[in-house]
């Protein structure tokens, strides 16, 4: 069961991610990205992070991506135009990415060579209670700092976007 779930959602995630990259229209990319996020949320659930899974959908899919879709609609962004080209990217890009992927996979295998097996329900440390407790005790200061960050981001976004008016 776990294997099936993992494979299904991993494949969905990878396909959607590929779609993000290859689609020429931004809104298609955005919706594919939502697909990635949704399947990642399921994977989080499998890994026992239920609160983060819900937050993933609410924050990422429900708020951040809505912003993206909004901006795309507002600017009426169309298909991509291939105009400029960068010599560096064209020559180095693909080999570097393949090397990166290889290295990442290599490290993943070397770090955990098959030993820890993920069973759904084996780790239940991701409940809202556990996360909340950690957030409000050990990570209280970062948490508060984050709230300040968000406040600043709101102000910044308002100030920047306000120029639209005049």
């Amino acid at each position, binding site marked *: 069961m776990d294997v099936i779930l993992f494979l299904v959602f991993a494949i969905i995630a990878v396909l959607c991610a590929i779609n993000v990259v290859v689609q020429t229209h931004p809104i298609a990319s955005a919706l594919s990205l939502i697909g990635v996020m949704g399947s990642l949320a399921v994977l989080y659930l499998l890994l026992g992070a239920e609160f983060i899974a819900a937050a993933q959908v609410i924050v990422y899919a429900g708020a951040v991506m809505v912003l993206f879709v909004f901006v795309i609609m507002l600017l009426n962004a169309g298909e991509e135009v291939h105009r*400029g080209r960068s010599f*560096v*990217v064209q020559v180095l890009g693909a080999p*570097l990415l393949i090397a990166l992927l290889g290295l990442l996979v*290599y*490290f993943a295998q070397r770090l955990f060579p098959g030993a820890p097996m993920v069973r759904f329900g084996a780790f239940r440390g991701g409940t809202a209670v556990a996360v909340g407790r950690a957030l409000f005790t050990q990570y209280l200061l970062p948490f508060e700092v984050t709230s300040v960050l968000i406040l600043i981001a709101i102000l910044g976004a308002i100030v920047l976007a306000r120029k639209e008016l005049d």
Partner: protein
Amino acid sequence: MQLWLIPAFPLAGFLINGLLGRRASKGFINAVAIGSVLLSFAWVLKTIMGLGDVSSRYVEHYFTWIQSGALQVNFDFAVDRLTVVMLLVVTGVGALIHIYSVGYMGHEGGYYRFFAYLNLFMFFMLTLVLAANYLVLFVGWEGVGLCSYLLIGFYFLRQSATNAGNKAFIVNRIGDFGFSLAIFLVFLNFGTLDFGGVFANVPGKPETLLNTIGLLLLVGACGKSAQIPLYVWLPDAMEGPTPVSALIHAATMVTAGVYMVARSNVIYIHAPVAQEAVALIGLATAFFSATIGLLQNDIKKIFAYSTVSQLGYMFVGAGVGAFSAGIYHLVTHAFFKALLFLGSGSVIHALSGEQDVRRMGGLAKKIPWTFWTMLCAAVAIAGVPPFSGFYSKDMILAAAYQRAPWIYWVGAITAGLTAFYVFRAIFLAFFGAYRGHEHPHESPPVMILPLAALAFLSLAGGFLFDVPQFLERLFPPIEESHDVTLVAVSVAIGLAGIGLAALFYVVKPSLPDSLAASFSGVYKLIYNKYFVDEIYDAAVVKPVVNGSRSLLWKGVDVGLIDAGVNGLGWSARGIGGILRLLQSGSIRSYATWVVFGSVVLMVAMAMAGGVR
């Protein structure tokens, strides 16, 4: 006991007037300024009542101000009998001068500013007096210096006023430098700055060390109390409004040096060389500035040199071991010198700004209140018994005779000079025929009232307040001398001074000019204040300015620092010129380089086996 309230009232007054005063009415400003000082005075009285006879030192701890390694400085206030005397003088005389200022400053601009500064000064002065350790004292010390600077330059549109303010500030810095060195030494050798802790450990310390500390403290005291060689700022400080001269440059701030020396009496008793130096500098200053005072024509300058001279007297008192006599003189001096300044302020007010005694004369009839009150101050300062100056001056001279008779003689002659120049000023201003053009008018009651109060204190203060007896347990005892001849001699010299002044300026007004003609060399020397300012300018100021210009600016700054900085800039530009080839402006190529970097890092990590 809430000692902190004593300085807190003027501070509140300063904040209120300083922040809101610009729009407030004069009544409001007066109420806040005078009210805060009166409240402070009342709180001093209440504190004294609460402490009974203040037989022991009472300390209040507020908070740990500085905690750094071994250095722990508490923000503490303390009260003992010396503090009580100072508190009463500062708040009492301060309150009278505040009231006087209402009349004197009534027509000046920056009214709220003036009173805000005065209140700030009161705050710092009270902090200075109440301080329980050297650092808090230093805070007050610097604070009063700041206020003095602000108030000397009160008429900041006048170039001479700002120059005088700067001069006072800079000269005081020299003194403060000595003072801070002394504080460092104290901390280094005693491990604390607290008065109690320091003085308890003084016996047993090497005498050289104590002498050094004493001399450095003396440097500080010389700066603040205008002693040779740092007295030059005080006469110029008369550029400030007259109440300021009375409060800061006669009654309170300039006596801070004397207070500090008296406070550190334990150190000086164990440091004979330093104490000797205190006495000598005091004596020299007293005599020297008395001679300058003889020939001044600006009424405020006369009293300024007189102040320097009287401060010298106090130092003599402290130097010969009669600390209580020095403080006694401090108190009486606060009365009669404040009165002299306020009186001269009244005269200047009456003459709409005229300060030159040569253009006064015959004012006794026109402004009788001012005349009579100033006459009280004059007899007090001249040491005529039984007025206040007689008691304190006589006590200092007696103590000096015990130490060394020649000090007594110089002091006595100085007393005669003092009597002469003070009465010279009185005679020139109030007797004879009027030589000016203005129409003199008597000052308003709000100015006369403080004058009257101070006149009473000048006359009766000597036997009303027996300061030495009050302080007797605090200082080493003075060997009492009951040699009536000494007293008689000094009084006689003083009376002779008055008589001479009467002869010169009332009976035979032509005599001074003929004397000046026959002793023209000495006359010129004294008239130009021994050319001290010019000597300082040539010896100190010019070399510093020229050295800065040629060596530091042209040499070090342009040649060394600028060259180095510019060289860095040029090399950065050169390297940047090469590196800018990487900057294609395309984010995607940058990102490629980032990926490249991370791949390299990961390869390195894999080869080094960095992860497990």
